[in-house]
């Protein structure tokens, strides 16, 4: 789908002001332990503001500490109030092994005196980090999970790190980074009356490849950006990793301020790029002209307009994950299911991203609508995004608004997984096959 698409691309003017910095350059300069200004390409030791450790935090971390040479495990954490441990992913515990790991986690949290601990709360750690105001604008936050990038939605510099990196961070509150090149993704258009973020990121991956931002920092801007809800921004930032990015950030605005200040009283300093900052690349997308799209099996960038996959029979449809388990994703499904029933033979699974999101959906009456129409609501968590809940069998087809469609992601390597936005998924669930949402949703 590389031809005739409404995207223009240009390279930034190399003669721009020399001193101006991108968001990533500014963020890392402010966090540089050496106190010097850093530029794209440079290496630095950075000061970390927050460390998110999800369910793989404690036991593997304890084992790594022993492997490193600490006989009794981690001797300390650098700052007890900046380490966040959230036993998420699979709650209530799915196996004996997880139960035993969680027990180690509790012991470690206690021993190390970690202050913020969400013990066995159903949900996805990334959503809880945002729900509970644990990420502030301008902070440099790391997590032992690839989708940590999602906190860029609230103007933070956030990225996934490896477990060994995390051990280093827990000890010292510091970590090495290479300053990324920045890529400006300019989204222009009017906000439609349904979530659009998933289609945008899939579309970009289809157009530019699933690594178009490899190792880079994405800055989202354009006339659409301020109109996007925090939920939509979270989807776009979270999916930064699916296109290879290190950071995927939005600027600060009233929407962000409102979201953050209702969740935390701690002060923060917004992050913005300087006028004339140097971008390695700029991509413009006119969202109003964009078609609905799906990613066909088995890669995120294997994207076609939905009409090209039209008529593909499905066995399962899903909405959930750290990319799409948010209120607006579930709300659009409920709006579709108000007038339609889930097609016979289709299993439609919906999993809110956290207990807070679940509660919000319940209070809005969405859950009732979904269940009456034949959907199944799954406990918040990661199960829906992995082969943990709702396995697929050989030859089965699933369309899902989750993060990944890799081979075997939902069980059988002979199953076919399509990715789509929540509206496209809901439309497929009622049609029993992939359709253009315009065919079933009158709000378009």
């Amino acid at each position, binding site marked *: 789908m590389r031809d005739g698409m409404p995207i223009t691309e240009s390279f930034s003017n190399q003669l721009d002001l020399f001193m101006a910095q991108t968001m990533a350059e500014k963020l890392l300069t402010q966090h540089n332990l050496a106190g010097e200004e850093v530029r794209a390409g440079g290496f630095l030791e950075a000061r970390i503001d927050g460390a998110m450790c999800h369910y793989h935090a404690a036991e593997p971390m304890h084992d790594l500490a022993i492997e490193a040479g600490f006989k009794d495990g981690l001797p300390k954490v650098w700052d007890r109030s900046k380490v966040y441990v959230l036993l998420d992913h699979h709650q209530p515990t799915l196996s004996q092994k997880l139960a035993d790991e969680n027990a180690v986690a509790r012991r470690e949290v206690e021993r190390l005196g970690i202050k913020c601990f969400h013990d066995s709360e159903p949900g996805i750690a990334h959503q809880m980090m945002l729900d509970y105001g644990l990420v502030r604008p301008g902070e440099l936050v790391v997590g032992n999970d690839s989708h940590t990038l999602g906190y860029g939605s609230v103007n933070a510099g956030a990225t996934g790190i490896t477990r060994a990196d995390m051990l*280093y961070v827990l000890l010292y509150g510091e970590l090495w980074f290479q300053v990324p090149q920045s890529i400006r993704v300019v989204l222009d258009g009017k906000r439609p009356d349904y979530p659009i973020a998933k289609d945008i990121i899939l579309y970009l991956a289809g157009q530019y490849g699933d690594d178009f931002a490899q190792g880079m920092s994405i800055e989202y801007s354009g006339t659409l950006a301020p109109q996007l809800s925090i939920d939509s921004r979270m989807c776009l930032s979270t999916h930064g990793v699916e296109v290879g990015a290190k950071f995927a950030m939005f600027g600060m605005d009233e929407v962000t301020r409102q979201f953050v200040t209702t969740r935390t009283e701690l002060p923060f300093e917004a992050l913005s790029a300087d006028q004339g900052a140097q971008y390695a690349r700029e991509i413009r997308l006119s969202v109003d002209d964009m078609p609905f799209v799906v990613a066909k099996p088995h890669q995120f960038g294997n994207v076609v307009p939905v009409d090209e996959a039209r008529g593909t029979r499905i066995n399962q449809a899903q909405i959930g994950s750290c990319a799409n388990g948010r209120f607006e994703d579930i709300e659009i499904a409920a709006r579709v299911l108000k007038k339609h029933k889930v097609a016979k033979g289709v299993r439609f699974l919906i999993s809110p991203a956290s207990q807070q999101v679940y509660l919000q959906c319940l209070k809005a009456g969405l859950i009732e609508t979904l269940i009456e129409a034949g959907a199944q609501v799954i406990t918040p968590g990661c199960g829906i995004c992995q082969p943990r809940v709702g396995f697929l069998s050989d030859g089965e087809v699933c369309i899902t608004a989750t993060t990944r469609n890799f081979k075997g992601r939902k069980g059988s390597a002979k199953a076919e997984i399509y990715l789509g936005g929540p509206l496209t998924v809901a439309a497929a669930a009622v049609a029993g096959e992939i359709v253009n949402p315009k065919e079933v949703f009158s709000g378009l």
Partner: protein
Amino acid sequence: MGFDLNRLIRGRVWKFGDSIETDAINPYYQYPTMEELKQHTMEVYRPEFPREVKPGDVMIAGRNFGCGSSRPGLVLREVGIAAIIAESVSRLFLRNSISRAIPIFVVPGITALAEDGDTLEVDYPKGVIVNPATGATLPVNKYPAGIEQIFECGGLLQFAYERYIREAALAGRSGLEKQE
């Protein structure tokens, strides 16, 4: 355990495509233990890989190697892969490999340098990769000094431990006795 940057690596090539994901390298959902992983790594792309890979083999791949989750590729080292060379590597996989001192090289053009089953030589000190059969070569970039140090320590874990011991000694703390 560590990776000696000065050692010449010479091995038989396994060639893979673009965007090989960590689910394929490390399918831990289905196979949670290292022993199981060793029998299933990469099988969604090459079912014979776990059976036929030999210690000292090298892996080459297209762009975006190791995309997906933050899971490491330790299993590749466990089955004996001596080096991973790719057109480009996802940043987390690269970080993971550095952290665990797994030799990994980003070498644009690598997929045109060798075919499956060829032999390749990686000479990091000289900064060159050679296909001895064809004589074709490609340059290998040096890592910055800080990263080389992590490799030399045997990975970031060991690096972290050494720093702790050093600082504890400097501060004259009892941490040293406690941990040693």
